[in-house]
């Protein structure tokens, strides 16, 4: 990429008869819909990360729908939002999937939930359940949040000969999702995936019934493991949109709790991974070590999980000197204990042998699919939002971003192990340099019609929240969790792998399906199909 990215964005906008505006770290480009594929494709090829797209029903505001593709320039710490307005009666947009495969799911989600048709691609139903009535798009403003269609429950066998169903209920999976592994003997030759079993209509709920502060608590319930980062991401997006100056001490508290959450999440994952490998002793010890972090979280926030301390404008709980001392004492002990545990666990021959060389995700596929977090860093992509687009108090901490190039299950394990040590270091630094002052704004206003986009580096990768402010509540709130980007990569990771390694590889991306809720059917040979398997529906 050239030295003057702003110049590049300006020329892309102007060459498409569009407009450009800059708000803080976000570049807003508005162009005709026909120009979107070219611009998105060019930025993607120049190394921008494709994050997500957002479809908005703006008809009450201006009579149009809109579609926004969001990319980030990780090297410059810039968000780039490319927006097009679409016809209010029949919204149609050209697809960008040809050059940016990572946009596949979000386009289909926009189609399902807002009713935008995409040209130049094969479309299929993604989010909505079978039996959902045609022409009813839940995220449109004329569809009430309590709309409940008549859906007939019916069951249908989805497995044929040679298929091994993994899910929706399976010991290797901790949330309902479904992988259909087509096998020859013990080798996986094809993978079909469907999700969305826990789609809860969170965005609609927030846009319809809640005020800005209430959405914090809803956001934290998107996920039971990494809920706080969702809450922080949402709050930061609103604060960015409203240009709020949040007290610095509050940002420090947020960052400390975010890292505590990362440590707990990675330890949880490590235990689950070892259990999947049949090494239950490792699982028990990982969770025993994790228990100290849970107690620490309760000390700092009042809850072991789902902390409930985040607000727009700050936090609800402070960290005093007593708590600070206790945190440092526990983390010092944990560092030593975790180090010993890792040496033992990775020394078990079966653990080492089964993780090494399995579930490989080559770098070029990782880039094409815009994977996130440890999955990306294990495949050689040096990307971390805490360093690239510092938020909260991360600009005041010095830390390494672990990157491995093998792209196998071992690499993903080592990235997370290294991140635990880095998180401990970050917490120690932040506690040492925490400034005095208030922990939240006493009063503030959130003007209407503003946009805030924020990426927070969750334990699983970059989580992105988009907020368009409305009157007293978000007009549009879009959440794209990191697992959403990582699941499509499983098709690459699972093909030609032994069946025994399939659950291990699925676990290796640390999937969080509560965050994700999506479905795709992928055929062998790289093609895609819109076939829809009907399962018993008890959706709404």
């Amino acid at each position, binding site marked *: 990429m050239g030295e003057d990215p702003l110049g590049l964005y300006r020329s892309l906008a102007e060459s498409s008869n569009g407009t450009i505006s800059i708000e803080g770290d976000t570049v807003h480009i508005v162009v005709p819909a026909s120009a979107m594929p070219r611009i998105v494709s060019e930025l993607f090829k120049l190394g921008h990360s494709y994050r997500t797209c957002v479809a908005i029903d703006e008809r009450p505001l201006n009579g149009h729908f809109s579609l926004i593709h969001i990319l980030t320039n990780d090297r410059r710490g810039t968000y780039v939002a490319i927006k097009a307005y679409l016809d209010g009666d029949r919204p149609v947009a050209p697809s960008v999937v040809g050059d940016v495969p990572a946009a596949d799911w979000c386009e289909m989600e926009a189609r399902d939930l807002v009713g935008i048709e995409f040209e130049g691609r094969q479309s299929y139903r993604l989010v909505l359940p079978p039996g959902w009535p045609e022409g009813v798009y839940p995220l449109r403003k004329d569809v009430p949040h309590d709309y409940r269609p008549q859906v007939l429950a019916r069951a249908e066998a989805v497995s044929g000969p040679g298929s091994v169903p993994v899910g929706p209920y399976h*010991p*290797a999976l901790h949330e309902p999702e479904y992988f259909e592994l087509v096998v020859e003997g*013990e080798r996986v030759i094809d993978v079909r995936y469907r999700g969305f079993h826990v789609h809860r209509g969170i965005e609609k709920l927030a846009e319809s019934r809640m005020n800005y502060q209430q959405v914090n608590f809803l956001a934290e319930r998107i996920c039971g493991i990494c809920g706080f980062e969702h809450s922080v991401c949402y709050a930061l997006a609103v604060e960015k949109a409203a240009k709020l100056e949040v007290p610095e001490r509050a940002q420090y508290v947020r960052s400390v709790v975010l890292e505590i959450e990362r440590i707990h999440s990675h330890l949880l994952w490590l235990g689950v991974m070892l259990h999947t*490998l*049949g090494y239950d002793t490792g699982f*028990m010890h990982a969770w025993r070590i994790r228990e100290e972090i849970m107690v620490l979280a309760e000390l700092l926030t009042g809850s072991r999980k789902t902390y409930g301390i985040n607000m727009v404008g700050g936090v609800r709980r402070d960290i005093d000197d007593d708590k600070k001392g206790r945190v440092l004492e526990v983390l010092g002990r944990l560092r030593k204990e975790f180090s010993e545990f890792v040496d033992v666990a990775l020394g078990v021959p079966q653990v080492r042998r089964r993780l090494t060389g399995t579930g490989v995700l080559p770098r070029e596929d990782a880039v094409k699919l815009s994977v996130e977090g440890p999955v990306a860093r294990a495949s050689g992509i040096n990307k971390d939002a805490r360093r690239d687009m510092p938020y909260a108090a991360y600009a005041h901490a010095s830390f390494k971003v672990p990157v491995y190039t093998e792209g196998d299950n071992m690499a993903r394990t080592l990235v997370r192990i290294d991140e635990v040590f880095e998180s401990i270091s970050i917490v120690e630094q932040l506690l040492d340099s925490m400034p005095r002052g208030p922990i939240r704004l006493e009063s503030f206003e959130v003007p209407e019609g503003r946009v805030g986009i924020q990426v927070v580096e969750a334990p699983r990768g970059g989580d992105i929240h988009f907020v368009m402010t409305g009157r007293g509540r978000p007009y549009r709130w879009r959440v794209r969790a990191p697992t959403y980007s990582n699941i499509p990569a499983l098709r690459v990771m699972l093909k030609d792998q032994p069946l*025994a390694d399939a*659950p291990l590889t699925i676990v290796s991306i640390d999937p969080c399906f509560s965050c994700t809720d999506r479905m795709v059917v992928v055929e062998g040979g790289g093609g895609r199909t819109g076939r829809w398997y009907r399962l018993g529906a008890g959706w709404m």
Partner: protein
Amino acid sequence: MEFIPAVFAAAAPLIAIVYDGLERKLRAALQSRIGPPLLQTLYDVAKLVGKSSAHPPAARAIAFLLSTSVVLQAIALYYVLSLVGSGDLLGGAPVVIVLMLASQSALSIVPFLVPSPFAQIGGAREVLLSLVNETALVASLSIFAFAHSSTATWWAARSLALSTALAAIALSTYAMGGRAPFDLPEAEPELASGILVEFGGWTLALALCANFTRRLLLELVAASAALLAWVGPGPTTTIAVLVASPAVRALYATSSAILGRTRIDVGIASLSRAYLILLALSVAGLFLGVLHG
């Protein structure tokens, strides 16, 4: 003293269940946990027997095979303990081998009567492992019986044959017990409990009973071989075997607790290599002992 093998064999399923409780307690200690009560497995089996739940379509055939397996294992246990007392290894070992193979065959058929891909895959893994392990167990027991009964005077050759045969017996009895790294037929996170996936209620209780009894039998075989090699046959050796069997259980349980699960292709290859080396050495020792006279 003659009644001890009979009583033990008759109570084998119950003793096997209690041994599993011991194993769970030991595993908990290794994992820094308190663990369930010693009799928890007994409570679990009792609860399962009392539960009404769905069963595979061929539940009766499965029940017959599992029960047959338990009975055959109990009879084999009787013979093992009797052999330890009498010392007639060459005469008794074939009987033990046939009984063990028959009970294992009955167990191996069961997963294929369950219409679930997980059970079928688990069953296939069970068969593959059995082919390797049973061959090794039969060979090593036979070599052990010959070496033990041999009148060869070359101590070193006899020791080589006995010790390597004993090592092969230990490895095969461990692997056949379905413990890590060879807990592949069940492989809960991979195969959603594999061979046990469609069992519930009394079918699951019976399947667990069969597995626990098999483990007890295998450990007694290993303990018997070890003590026979060391102290020789006799009534007191029979008692010693019964006393030593919890120690064998503790050893096997500890090993499985500190290992992960292998993959079927890797597991078979590793076992095959190990058996080839051990059996080659034991045959060599036997041969040298015979040659030496």
